């Protein structure tokens, strides 16, 4: 009788035991998951350093970072990635220059000005933009943007014999594609931070007689500054790490980063040559990966600094 009762309705002790066990098991699972992320980052960092440094050591750090000639398969190979680094920096910078103003104004519009119906249309569009695979951006860029760019190029450089014609696959095309790709990141984070600005700021500004626009530009955006900067840094991270989309529109030749030059980014440099490379060439590609990794790390550190600052202010 007693035993049947205990199996039907657990005693306090029994239930407590199973619960503790479950708690412990779940705790361990959470711990393991948490540690995996840490281990993955450490593992990748370690792997990049280990596999990326031999080539740098062999080539020489100065020659690798500041050499301008990338001839990995020549009889007298040279592995200078200065132009590749500069292209990644310039390309990212220009994409930010082009994309951030548009994104910021969109964020302001969404958080402050948009009527409900328009908001219901723009908001999902921005989210969809974030979800489009990067290869689609590249494909559309190659089909729609590159031919237009070729026309512009031909018109601009028709009488310039020193210009190498790229057929429209150039830095500018890549920048435009990147600028569009960073929009959702910047819009989302900026909008959130604009919405987080205390209502009183806006009310006080309007009460003091400032117009709506003055309030937005003089009060709202400055107040949301740290969030906006965060969004820009996230955008930089997105842009510098992108490979697939820009590979299809940038021409992929190692050249100094001028708008109408065919250029190669850090990411595309690895993707293009990894499959068939061997020996020192292959190791050098890992070294490019290491450089890219360090860039991303630096961006993340900057991001953390801004986030901390923003947190302290509040």
């Amino acid at each position, binding site marked *: 009788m007693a035993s049947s009762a205990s199996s039907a309705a657990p005693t306090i002790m029994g239930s407590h035991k199973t619960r503790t066990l479950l708690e412990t098991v779940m705790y361990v699972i959470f711990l393991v998951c948490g540690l995996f992320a840490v281990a993955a980052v450490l*593992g990748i960092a370690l792997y990049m350093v280990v596999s990326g440094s031999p080539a740098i050591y062999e080539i020489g750090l100065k020659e690798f970072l500041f050499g301008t000639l990338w001839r990995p398969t*020549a009889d007298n190979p040279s592995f200078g990635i200065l132009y590749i680094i500069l292209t990644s920096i310039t390309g990212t910078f220009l994409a930010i220059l082009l994309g951030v103003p548009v994104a910021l104004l969109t964020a302001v519009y969404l958080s402050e000005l948009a009527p409900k119906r328009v908001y219901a249309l723009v908001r999902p569009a921005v989210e969809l933009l974030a979800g489009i695979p990067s290869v689609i951006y590249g494909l559309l860029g190659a089909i729609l943007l590159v031919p237009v760019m070729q026309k512009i190029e031909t018109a601009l450089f028709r009488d310039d014999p020193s210009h190498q*014609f790229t057929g429209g696959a150039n830095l500018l095309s890549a920048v435009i594609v990147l600028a569009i790709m960073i929009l959702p990141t910047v819009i989302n984070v900026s909008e959130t931070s604009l919405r987080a600005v205390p209502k009183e700021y806006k009310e006080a500004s309007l009460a003091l007689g400032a117009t709506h626009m003055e309030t937005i530009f003089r009060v709202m955006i400055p107040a949301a500054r740290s969030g906006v900067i965060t969004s820009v840094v996230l955008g930089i991270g997105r842009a510098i790490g992108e490979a697939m989309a820009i590979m299809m529109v940038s021409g992929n030749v190692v050249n100094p980063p001028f708008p109408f030059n*065919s250029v190669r980014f850090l990411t595309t440099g690895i993707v293009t040559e990894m499959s068939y490379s*061997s020996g020192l060439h292959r190791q050098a590609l890992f070294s490019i990966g290491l450089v890219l990794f360090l860039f991303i790390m630096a961006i993340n550190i900057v991001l953390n600094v801004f986030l901390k600052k923003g947190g302290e202010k509040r």
Partner: protein
Amino acid sequence: MKLKQILCGVLSAAMMTAVFSGCASTPSESSSAPSAPESSTPESSVASSDTGSSLTGAISMSGSTSMEELVKAMAEDFMAKKPGVTIDPQFNGSGQGIKDAQEGKADIGNSSRELKDEETGLVPTTVAIDGIAVIVNTANTASGLTMEQLAKIYTGEISNWSEVGGADAPIVVIGRDAASGTRGAFEEIVGVKDACVYAQEKDSTGGVKTAVASTPDAIGYVSLEAADSDDTVKKMTLDSAEATEANIVAGTYKLSRPFIMAVKEGEVKPEVQAFLEYALSADGQAIVKSLKLITVA
């Protein structure tokens, strides 16, 4: 409910393990994707009537990516005929293949170019010849180039189609990435090794073809077979010779390269010898022909 949650946790943990170990174990040496032919050793161990069906062993191959299709097809056919033999081909570039054969890491080193003078200690067998076609956009009015003009176009000395009998339009020079066998062969035959000024570098034959097909003033190079497979691009004549099999065999069309299987000097394993004989046999050459390559025997 709780069970479900635990299951979820365990599953995601397992997934992370998989992802992480995947990241951590991307060793630099595993360059080529393991590429055993789809239909590996056939189970039909029923005594085939084929002579020499007693042949057993494994043949390791390494080398040219350009030869991938040919090698896979030959290996598949050979293994069907000699069920006791397994062939494990890797495709990691001609240079690597030659090195592997020299060092004994592979029984056969595949090379899509002639062996260099310093690549000694090997016995090469040419099993097929591949032609490289110079292609332009179908709208291009120029129809032929000399080898000299071709070299000058790729080094940037000639930069307008009007200089070679075409319309007044800048030439867009398209090529392959530095690790490509086609690029190596092209630059070597044309005599512009490491002197090319490319406007676009593509990482595949298809990429070059697509770019040339969609860029009016482009010029590019692909294997003859790829150029002939459809008419999205136009082949150029070189030194007035059309890019055809007959002209390559006759030697009038210069832009071609041999597909070589090289073995280490000295004693050759019987199964390797059998494979080389097979490659030059009627069956092997039929495969060469079916892949639109040029037969040698």
